[in-house]
């Protein structure tokens, strides 16, 4: 077996999700190659070559891949990947965008968002927003799979010494062009891979009040998230949404503040190791999954939480 892992990166840094996808590939077994597609990705390729367990790094460095357009990546990965038994990518918005194109171009099914590898052709994945867990077997010659990064412990970022090979494959589908982007700038850790996440819900009442959570996040080295209700209400931008259709997180500690715990939210965070809920409604469903629940008005509890944390950190 041979597995092609598509690296997740931003042209300058390799994302930790890649290490989790390599871990999933290792669970299948066989040679693991990593494809780094982007623009000016020398540093990313170097980092990918150091990943533990990687055989070879393939580099497609061209402006046509610079913005990760699904049409171009789809053609590239279908071409490079057709010699492999498995093609794996992280189930982030880039992987979700181009991987189904790869599957369609290769005329194979895709298995989305796997949480576990049962064997080389059988995978476990959530359906119905995580309310059911399906074991799925693929009968196709090439398994095109997206991986839920939080479900696999990342392999070591160092220790490997893969060869690096440059690919001269330029696929410009000519169907789409990049116009612009508005990316959130933050010094805090990435929400999807942070060890601690503190999230606010509708109970926060407005975007300004999220500053209270940011102060605690900075004390703990945490990322700040939000429920769909808080995003829909316009308190915070969409990239902060945790849940079925937002980001899936599984940190060591998840603190839910003013979040009632709708099923769609629970689908995005219930694999967290320790869950804390702070909510004034003691009937809120979030308490049914919380390890520690505090029934309190968040506007009193959060400043107190900050003071108490300062004493112990």
């Amino acid at each position: 077996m041979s597995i092609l892992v598509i690296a997740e990166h931003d042209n300058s840094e390799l994302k930790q999700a890649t290490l989790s996808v390599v871990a999933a590939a290792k669970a299948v077994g066989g040679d693991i190659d990593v494809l780094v597609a982007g623009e000016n990705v020398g540093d990313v390729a170097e980092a990918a070559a150091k990943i533990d367990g990687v055989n070879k790094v393939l580099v497609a460095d061209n402006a046509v891949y610079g913005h990760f357009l699904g049409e171009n990546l789809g053609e590239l990965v279908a071409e490079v990947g057709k010699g492999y038994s498995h093609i794996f990518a992280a189930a982030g918005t880039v992987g979700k965008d181009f991987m189904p194109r790869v599957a369609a171009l290769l005329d194979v099914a895709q298995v989305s968002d796997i949480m576990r590898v049962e064997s080389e052709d059988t995978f476990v994945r959530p359906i119905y927003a995580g309310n059911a867990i399906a074991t799925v077997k693929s009968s196709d010659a090439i398994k095109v799979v997206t991986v839920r990064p939080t479900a696999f412990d990342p392999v070591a970022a160092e220790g490997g010494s893969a060869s690096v090979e440059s690919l001269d494959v330029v696929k410009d589908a000519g169907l789409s062009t990049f116009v612009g982007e508005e990316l959130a700038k933050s010094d805090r850790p990435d929400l999807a891979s942070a060890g601690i996440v503190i999230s606010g819900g509708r109970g926060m009442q407005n975007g300004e009040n999220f500053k209270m959570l940011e102060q605690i996040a900075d004390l703990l080295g945490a990322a700040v998230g939000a429920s769909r209700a808080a995003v829909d209400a316009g308190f915070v931008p969409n990239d902060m949404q945790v849940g079925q259709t937002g980001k899936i997180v599984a940190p060591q500690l998840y603190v839910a503040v003013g979040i009632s715990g709708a099923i769609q939210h629970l689908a995005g965070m219930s694999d967290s190791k320790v869950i804390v809920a702070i909510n004034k409604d003691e009937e809120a469903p979030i308490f049914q999954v919380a390890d520690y629940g505090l029934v309190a008005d968040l506007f009193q509890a959060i400043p107190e939480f900050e003071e108490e944390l300062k004493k112990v950190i």
Partner: protein
Amino acid sequence: MKVLVAVKRVIDYNVKVRVKPDNTGVDLANVKMAMNPFCEIAVEEAVRLKEKGVASEIVVVSIGPKACQEQIRTALALGADRGIHIETGEEVQSLEAAKLLKAVVEKEEPKLVILGKQSIDSDNNQTGQMLAALTGMGQGTFASEVVVEGEKVNVTREVDGGLMTVSLSLPAVVTTDLRLNEPRYASLPNIMKAKKKQLDVMSPEDLGVDIAARLSILKVEAPASRQAGVKVADVAELVDKLKNEAKVI
């Protein structure tokens, strides 16, 4: 321009999902079914394009058993002009759905195809992208804004880091995210009118598409349930537990 919208009949999003005791799937007997929420957003976007004078005709298509016609009628009541039902009792997976939709695209030649980004039952998030690849179209996935300008469509997409805008040549595929719009409700007169709108029924064989599934579901289980923990009396106790019991700070 003509707009094609694909809609899927799924379990109503308010229904609590129960796994069957024999682990073969989810219990759908006597359960309320509805249009997939992301598909409702797709229909709404098409109707808004028509109201703006950008779209001239909206064709809505659904794949599945006869009961899917309910969801097609709902879309017709919301403002779609005409329906296509690809009737089959078989389970249709994403790749095969994309192939069926491709056959419809070839017949109808729409300028824009709008689909939900995922259905809330199988949660695959594949069909729109597969359709785009099979038809050689560009794709604007996870859309939060769609602006048609001449022979191009600009799509603002919800991506992990924030928002990203791409420009696509028409014809193109758009898949909807939650914040693209807020779907309207159908009015009673429009529900009545929808009953008279044209609805063509065809089979996968009529379209020449093999819908045999490539993925087999070996079992479906309920997720491991999390036990509720303890309630703490105050913030001091919470911090103490986090530090000394859970040891996570």
